[in-house]
């Protein structure tokens, strides 16, 4: 059985060790924060200028001066710090975050990411912090369904959509399997009720099978 969005968020949360500095982008990846191990100190960054971001506030306790990158009200945990936009993006660009998790339209077997524009004529472009996030962490993880609603693979040989970043993605978590980006292309490291052969067929890609190799500690 493939994983639903929340189950996938929970799966990703398992791979984030205590002490990590993490940016969860906007949209689906923000669900991951609900599944981080209870009591484990993992420090969340939001690119609009904060480390130590906490969960959403209770009703009546909303602070319009305290929001995340998705412009959703959040809270402040003890040990937080605020900084301005140039400092915040310097933190990302300088490679100080351990993990960042992003959505995707397409990921190429070289680790190229397309997640900001489908390049449709007449569409109004908007990039926000996507390109900074794509290059802004030691590990750049993608969280996505393997297939689009039309059944096309989001894992591709080369991205057809406009790029967000070049050779930046290190791992892709999908509803069907987890893929590492390697010099040999995508390597399947874990499957959810499917096989590497089936994944090859769905993606049209030659995949490396690493499902039997235990992950390094």
């Amino acid at each position, binding site marked *: 059985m493939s994983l639903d969005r929340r189950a996938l968020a929970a799966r990703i949360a398992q791979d984030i060790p205590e002490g990590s500095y993490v940016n969860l982008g906007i949209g689906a990846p923000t669900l991951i924060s609900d599944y981080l191990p209870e009591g484990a100190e993992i420090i969340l960054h939001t690119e609009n200028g*904060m480390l130590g971001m906490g969960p959403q506030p209770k009703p009546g*306790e909303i602070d319009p001066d305290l929001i995340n990158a998705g412009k*959703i009200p959040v809270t402040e945990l003890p040990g937080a710090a605020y900084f301005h936009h*140039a400092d915040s*993006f310097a933190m990302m660009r300088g490679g100080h975050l351990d993990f960042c998790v992003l959505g995707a339209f397409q990921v190429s077997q070289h680790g190229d990411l397309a997640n900001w524009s489908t390049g449709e004529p007449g569409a109004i472009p908007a990039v*926000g912090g996507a*390109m900074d996030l794509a290059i802004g962490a030691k590990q750049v993880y993608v969280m996505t369904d393997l297939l689009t609603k039309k059944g096309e693979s989001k894992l591709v040989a080369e991205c057809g959509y406009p790029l967000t970043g070049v050779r930046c993605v290190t791992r892709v978590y999908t509803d069907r399997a987890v893929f590492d980006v390697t010099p040999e292309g995508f390597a399947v490291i874990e499957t959810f009720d499917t096989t590497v052969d089936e994944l090859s067929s769905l993606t049209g890609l030659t995949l490396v099978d690493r499902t039997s190799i235990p992950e390094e500690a």
Partner: protein
Amino acid sequence: MIDKVRADAADAVSGIEDGSTVMISGFGRAGQPVELIDALIELGPRDLTIVNNNAGNGDVGLARLLANRQVRKIICSFPRQVDSWVFDGLYRAGEIELELVPQGNLAERIRAAGAGIGAFFTPTGFGTPLAEGKETRNIDGTDYVLEYPIRADYALIGGFLADRLGNVVYRKTSRNFGPIMAAAAATSIVQVDEVVEVGALDPEAVVTPGIYVDRVVAVGERPWLEHGVFVGADDAEGHRGTDAGTVAATEGGAA
């Protein structure tokens, strides 16, 4: 005696003329200089170039400035939002120019202007459509794009507290673009909840030193604070109690 305090928002924005480049701080509602934007609309200069992270929401603030046909060009990272209909309409009609900049490059280019840096090599955007036509270079194995400073004639900034010397502190994530815009503009105008005595701000915690600030105006405390202490709101626009629903409906709610 140095006194940068202006009587009201209209006084604070006076002199902004047609064709100016105006930076406006804020990310979402946080740090948005609402009263200064309204005063700029009232003042009426046209043909402006606006630098902001977004391109306006709903029908208020920056969106109203756009709707009022005062803006020729906008430099921002994220114009398209669920409630950016004013910008969307103007853009589709070809009536506003857009320079789209990745958010971190936007911040760093603004910072470079204030810091006297002539240009810098950034990895962000390399290999993407937003770097097309730009100079690139591989340095120590990493590919970079050359980006130039963004300067402005004026900056409109939303702060929290200031003194008459122009020292400013912000609240939480409303800090965002304020400090770098204050340094990048020839004339920087800051609105705050309250002007405090010189010496009331901790010198270790001043975020924007007065050297970067030309004009300060107090616009009164926002509804989610009481005497500087957080008391909370019921939505991200800062409305409280029973009025939240009504006002949110007319304003389009939070992004």
